[in-house]
């Protein structure tokens, strides 16, 4: 067996598979997160194993990973373990089956199907493994886009297809020094000093952006398409409810939910949260930038990422 240790949002996990497993060729997004020491202590281990049948399983839940995504997931109880079955979008077969120990420290993952479906399911399985193993450790995997500007991370979240990536792209275009930290699944953690830190992850959707970096959360912005640009500060409960729609919904165990709640409550009550009704244009960035930083967007700036 070959082992690699990765560190994401300061949580370490091990991936274990046969030396000749095809999976090792598909891990370029994990490379920035590789830990130098492959024998160091980890929070959990994911081992690639052959597909097994578990006849003694009971269905607990079936649905989507996020409220707005097409990947279908089934959760079963199997003795003391949890069994996750993941169907990639449009797939009729289980593409990933992951058996998690009751303490979420050991995950056995089997993949099947064509390369695209199997890899998409691996991507989801790795996020589920991370989420369930770290949910009670003040950590929240979000479905959002994180842009760093002036040393702070701004989180844009919305229903799929609303234009998270488009809006963060506009920041790169119109705001000098703005850069995307992660475009799909940044991770939030409560730091020792109570601040919320945003971390990059190996999971960045269609945008290849796998940065092992962090920045304090400056604000969170819910995007909605509208004919004009308008920003509104959200009350804590509104911010909380809004954030719920962008987090993993499979945290059914009380201790996971308690952990997730503590991070979400901390964000909703200490970080400015907004709703931005917007068009995909420069004025949307101006309106948002002014609310988030208290400064007008400097004119004649067209520097940035791309």
């Amino acid at each position, binding site marked *: 067996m070959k082992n690699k240790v990765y560190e994401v949002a300061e949580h370490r996990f091990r991936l274990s598979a046969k030396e000749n497993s095809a999976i090792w060729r598909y891990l370029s997004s994990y490379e920035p997160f590789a830990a130098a020491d492959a024998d160091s202590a980890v929070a959990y281990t994911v081992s690639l194993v052959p597909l097994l049948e578990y006849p003694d399983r009971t269905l607990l839940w079936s649905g989507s990973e996020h409220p707005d995504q097409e990947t279908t997931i089934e959760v079963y109880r199997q003795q003391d373990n949890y069994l996750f079955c993941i169907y990639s979008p449009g797939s009729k077969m289980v593409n990933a089956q992951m058996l998690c120990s009751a303490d979420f420290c050991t995950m056995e993952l089997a993949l099947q199907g064509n390369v695209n479906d199997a890899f998409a399911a691996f991507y989801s399985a790795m996020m589920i493994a991370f989420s369930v193993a770290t949910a009670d450790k003040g950590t929240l995997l979000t479905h959002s886009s994180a842009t760093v500007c002036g040393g702070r991370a701004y989180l844009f979240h919305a229903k799929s297809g609303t234009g998270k990536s488009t809006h963060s792209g506009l920041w790169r275009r119109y705001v000098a020094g703005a850069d995307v930290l992660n475009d799909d699944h940044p991770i939030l953690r409560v730091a020792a000093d109570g601040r919320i830190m945003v971390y990059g992850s190996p999971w960045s959707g269609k945008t290849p952006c796998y940065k092992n970096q962090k920045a304090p959360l400056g604000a969170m912005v819910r995007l909605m398409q509208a004919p004009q640009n308008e920003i509104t500060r959200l009350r804590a409960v509104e911010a909380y409810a809004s954030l*719920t729609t962008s987090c993993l919904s499979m945290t*059914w165990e009380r201790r996971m939910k308690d952990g997730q709640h503590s991070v979400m409550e901390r964000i909703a009550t200490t970080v400015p949260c907004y709703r931005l009704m917007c068009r995909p244009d420069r004025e949307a960035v101006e309106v948002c930038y002014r609310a988030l930083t208290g400064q007008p967007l400097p004119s004649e700036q067209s520097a940035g990422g791309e």
Partner: protein
Amino acid sequence: MRIVDGFVLRRVGSEYIVSGEGLGQVNLNRMFALNDAAAYLWQEIEGREFDDELLARLLVEHYGIDADRAAADAKSISNEWQKAGMTA
């Protein structure tokens, strides 16, 4: 009546919400805001049988309001909970 399994009261800053948690009959993405009186009642009747009379009695004891007003408030709160599927 009882609170349906999986609905949990949580505090967000100075406000309260009830969210559907856990697997089973609960829709995981529903969330309701509760005012202070409703949140107080929820904590009192969590894990046990209740009816409108008990809610009204709790309101009288806690807020010192008169019985008629308490009965009306209790009825409207329990109707809302039932409509939302949080109690049955």
